[in-house]
């Protein structure tokens, strides 16, 4: 209900009919061109080379690998995430530029999978970052990976229309919750060099859940990692 209202509000704001055409076009291009960053957190990484290379050829779907999080659109978390890795995955996710999507490959990202009683792996990836698509399986075949990516592309295409595929906005809007989960696992003085709150402010992505008691905790320990501005 609330979501619909929000959409209506947004639609009311944008009266220019061309704006929609433009937005749709960008959505279309976004769905057609996906740069992915595969973070080889686990076994699932082994099925990505087949999906990328000659046999399944991901590039024909407009998906190509990229090297750094800055350029990437999709973060492929390929398998169980150990706690040590999870910190890096979160950093990587925060360093990616929106719209950004997370695909959890392998059952381990859903619920710990085979390693459910391991002390070293985190169990639920979407506690720590919004996940767009899970591809379950141990490990999912390349076909399944491609299927999942296709599903994601569909979501992106209808992004602005149906508010699908915008899970990344959740991270800004509910930052407090995600930060709380992270703090629960890594300790209260956990922080990354990426200033999510400032980013949310700048791009107007704040929601009700952006601030809360966890962000207050963060503010207490956070050294101002403000960018160096030009001084005259």
């Amino acid at each position: 209900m609330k979501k619909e209202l929000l959409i209506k509000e947004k639609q009311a704001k944008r009266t220019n009919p061309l704006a929609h055409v433009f937005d749709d076009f960008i959505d279309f291009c976004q769905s057609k061109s996906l740069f992915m960053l595969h973070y080889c957190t686990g076994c699932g990484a082994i099925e990505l080379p087949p999906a990328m290379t000659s046999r399944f050829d991901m590039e024909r779907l407009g998906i190509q690998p990229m090297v750094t999080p800055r350029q990437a659109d999709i973060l492929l978390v390929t398998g169980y995430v150990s706690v040590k890795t999870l910190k890096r995955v979160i950093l990587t996710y925060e360093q990616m530029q929106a719209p950004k999507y997370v695909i959890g490959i392998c059952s381990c990202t859903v619920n710990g999978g085979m390693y459910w009683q391991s002390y070293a792996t985190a169990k639920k990836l979407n506690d720590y970052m919004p996940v767009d698509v899970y591809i379950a399986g141990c490990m999912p075949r390349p076909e399944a990976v491609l299927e999942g990516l296709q599903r994601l592309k569909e979501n992106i295409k209808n992004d602005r229309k149906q508010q699908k595929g915008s899970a990344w906005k959740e991270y800004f809007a509910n930052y407090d919750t995600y930060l709380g989960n992270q703090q629960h696992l890594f300790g209260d003085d956990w922080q990354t060099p990426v200033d999510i709150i400032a980013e949310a402010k700048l791009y107007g992505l704040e929601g009700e859940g952006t601030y809360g008691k966890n962000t207050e905790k963060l503010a207490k320990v956070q050294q101002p990692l403000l960018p160096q501005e030009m001084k005259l």
Partner: protein
Amino acid sequence: MNLLDQFFILIAVALLSITVLRNFRINDKMAPLWYGLMVVMLVRMAAVAYDGATLTSAFNIEILGFNMHWQFNALSWFFAIITVVAALASAIFMSGDWGRQYRELYEGQGGNYGLLQLALILNVASMLLLLASGDLLSLFIGWEFVSWASFLMMVLMPSKTAKKAAVKYVVYAMFGAMALLAALAIIYSNSVSFSGSLEFEQITQVFAGMDKGPQFSLALLFFIAFAIKMGLLPFHLWQAVAYAETPGPGAAFLGAISSRMGLFAMIIVIIQFIGLGHLQGMSIGLPFINMQTLLAWIAALTTIIPTYIALQQHDAKRLLAWHGVGQGGYMLLGLIMFDSIGSAGGLMHVLNHASYQAALFLTVVAVVYRTGTSDLNKLGGLVTQMPLSFLVMLIGIIGLAGLPPMNGFVSKWMVYRSLLLNGEPLLFVAAVLGTLGTILSVYKLIHNTFLGQLRVEHQNIREVPWSMMVPMLGLSAIVFITGFMPGLILPWIASVQETIGLPVIIHHLGGIEYAKGGLDMIWVSGILFYGFGVGALIFYFLGSKAKRVHQYDNYAGGHFLSADVKYHYSNNFYPGLMHLIGDWYRGSFKWMEQVIVSALSFVSKLFENMYRSRQPVMLLVIVVVVALFSIYKNTAGVSS
């Protein structure tokens, strides 16, 4: 009393005033004024620059039957205006906060600010004296003055390296002076064609009347004398260190113009009076290598080797000073082509180089003023703190690298064009190699100083005060404007060419005209700025705004960057190139310099020991024996 006399009087008054007042604060404000007045005087003499007239001073001296007189022509004026403007910029720069800091830092340790002011005016005065010289003798006198004035400037820095470098310079300079004296002696002793005066024209006559052998040695002596000052190839080792170790603005002044005095003398003697015909006539051993080719290759190698030495420096001042040596090569290379475009390029490069070299030196001094170091490995990320200095350095390095739209491009373009027209592919490649090396090394300069990781200790520094900023901005404005409209300068160049008897360039406001491909900088810059404009439009109107991030928010392979990580790549910036050429030139030039140094010290030790030897009688005996032997030898020669 003509304008030149007034000018000399002005210089004398300025010299006197600064000498007397040098230790008073008032001098800080006065000194720039004097240089400003000099600029005004030179502007009043603009007729010299545009019409090619000659102003002769009423003042002259008769020594040993030789008349010494002084005059100003287009060439002198051209060099003089560069000198005075560079001095003005330096004087303004050091008049304010810089001088205060210098006093605080060095006054106790032997540095003397008043002496620095004095050294500057002495340098200017002696250079102007040299530029105004009307005959060989006054040239020689001026030459000596310039050498000693530079020496005074160089020893001011209270550091061992500075002293050592200055002494090294003096040794070189004395050697050069000896060579010049020897050349004068040859002219004087050449009884066949010597007519009893040391006017410049005399050289042509003497030269024409000589055999090949003495001709060659005369040319060589002149060349050595001037090349040492200019830092041309075999004599390039003294200059960079000496200039780099000079106190701040002094370095800027010396780096901008001082060594160009060598070029000035070379233009007068070798280009104007010996001339193309003689140079081409002198072949050395092989038939296809004549003096012109040799000089051209010396010039070309001078562009390459010091540039690649500069590439290896990790001290900003030394890097720039080495470039100063290298850029001299372009000037000679252009001039030695003896055609309109090339020589114009060479001459114009003097001005261009002076402008951006001074700007760059001043920027580096500004950085040193704020951070206390010019070590490129200890800087980084200053652009956010000192954005205007960055801008000046950016303009400066674009000029130094010779990229459009700055003035360095214009003069280098002319040199290239001339090499193309003369069909000199290898020289052309050599010149391009020099330019490419320059691009590499200036990027290192700006990257290591202003870009990259900002160090913790520099996080609170600020832009330099306006007294320092104004000369820097002014110089960079010159760099840009003369690049955008080289036609402002080209008339001077044309009259210089006329004065020294070279073909004259056809110019307009935007550049030069030439049948098969000229240059119009207004169009070139226009197209470039149009491109930047479109690029900026694309950048700012497409896409969302960007978020500024802290430098720890950076890709490190997924790793968390923290404050204790040195994440700035500065040392050994071009390792790939160094793997290839590093050993070669490091080894060979170190070796060469060591040979020179040890030979010099050997000779000096030898003489020292002779003087201090316990048995002066032995010395006397040796001298007598040698004298007797030579008398015997000569008489024997006569009798037989």
